[in-house]
């Protein structure tokens, strides 16, 4: 569809609002791309749009959305930079395997020092102590790196699961309400086939036998335990279960129980929400 400049001016308001039919939109685009004359009317009217966009009163989204957005971006970053990711894993692997190789070398050096002379014995002992400290420090460092790496892999695995489930068109996603007002947050993603993911943040650390339990209560009003977990310093909780029985409307609650033997919710409800399929 070839358009004249006058016709483009007539269509300008519909074009900037994206309210023309697809063929008209394409024709205006094509004309503007190839026309030597300036079509200032498009800029004049189109300049209004950024201001229409701020007309709605700002609304604060759920707090978990920030973490979800940033996690998705970081996952995308990792996915697009496989080489850098491999380097990180190689460094971590090297650090993990280096600790045992340090131990024999350090031991040999210190024993040789013992054999040299009585006058050098003090220096040798200092060397041995320093070597032992170094070994312990290196082993601790390697352990910390391995822990971080395992944690990162676990987070990455959880993130991949979340993205996979949330990406399904039939997934229901519900933000959970912080009942205690202590900053806990999270969401549940549920598919009609019973695949459930519960992702939680800001939880208090569990001590002793304390356990967080996730309960689903359906139409029969009987709570069913979906999963249980303990929480460390990162305040995160995670449950993923397949084949959970679902009903049209369900109540989900996350309770902190004194031990893992609870067969029904007894402790305080930390987070909760309603799921409607």
């Amino acid at each position, binding site marked *: 569809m070839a358009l004249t400049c006058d016709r483009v001016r*007539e269509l300008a308001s519909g074009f900037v609002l994206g309210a023309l039919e697809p063929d008209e939109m394409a024709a205006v685009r094509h004309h503007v791309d190839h026309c030597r004359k300036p079509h200032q009317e498009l800029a004049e009217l189109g300049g209004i749009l950024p201001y229409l966009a701020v007309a709605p009163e*700002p609304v604060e989204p759920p707090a978990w959305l920030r973490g979800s957005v940033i996690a998705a971006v970081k996952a995308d*970053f990792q996915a697009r930079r496989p080489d850098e990711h491999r380097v990180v894993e190689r460094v971590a692997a090297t650090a993990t395997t280096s600790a045992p190789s340090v131990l024999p070398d350090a031991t040999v050096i210190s024993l040789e020092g013992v054999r040299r002379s009585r006058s050098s014995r003090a220096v040798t002992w200092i060397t041995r102590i320093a070597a032992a400290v170094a070994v312990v420090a290196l082993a601790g460092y390697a352990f910390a790196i391995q822990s971080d790496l395992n944690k990162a892999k676990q987070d990455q695995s959880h993130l991949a699961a979340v993205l996979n489930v949330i*990406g399904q068109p039939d997934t229901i*996603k519900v933000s959970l309400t912080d009942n205690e007002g202590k900053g806990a947050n999270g969401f549940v993603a549920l598919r009609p086939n019973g695949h459930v993911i519960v992702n939680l943040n800001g939880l208090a650390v569990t001590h002793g036998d304390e356990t967080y339990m996730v309960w689903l209560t359906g139409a029969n009003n009987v709570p069913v335990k979906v999963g249980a977990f303990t929480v460390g310093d990162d305040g995160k909780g995670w449950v993923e279960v397949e084949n959970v029985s679902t009903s049209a409307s369900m109540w989900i609650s996350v309770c902190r129980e004194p031990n893992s033997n609870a067969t029904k919710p007894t402790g305080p409800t930390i987070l909760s929400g309603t799921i409607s399929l």
Partner: protein
Amino acid sequence: MGAAPALVTPDNQADWHSEAELMRQVAAGDTGGLETLYDRYHAMAYALALRITTETGLAEDVVQDSFLGVWRNAARYAEPKGSVRGWLLAIVRHRAIDAIRRQRIGVALGDTTDDTLPASLTIPDIWPEVAGRLDAEQVRQALTALPPAQREVIELAYFDGLTQREIATHTNAPLGTVKSRMRLGLVALRQQLVGDTDGRADVPALGVAASAGKKGLV
């Protein structure tokens, strides 16, 4: 819903350029830059997505998808074509309209691979000089001041993603009337927000429309 968060947005040319630097950081793979953008604009983005989709779950998906789109396409942001805020919100609107159109025709939402930029992104933003003295309240007042019929067609197009033909069906008005109302409404909105067109000789269509508007055609 609590009190509406304050609008935090660059309101002068210097801040606008610093935002362009922020976009360069994002394009270079700095996730911290994207966190800054999120912290600055999440409430506006969510409000727009919610206004268009009217569903919190869908709005959340749209916001996440939009910031991911910003992350992936940051290198395509062109400073002369408009502010970062305008660019981001245009993406949010594009994604939100796409979501409700898919919903209308029963197409499932999936990972958005459509990177086609909305029409507004191809149009230079010629208003940076007035951005500092415009706030959301003024825009809302300007919209309210429009004749109801003009406001309706603009809102149906902008916030509901309807085409002129669909608006004609929806409002039971002739297509030509819808087109006139849309043009008159946009021109009137522009006049409300930034004053007259200063007699620009290169916008004859706007001049005709503005004159028609003054004759009371709605």
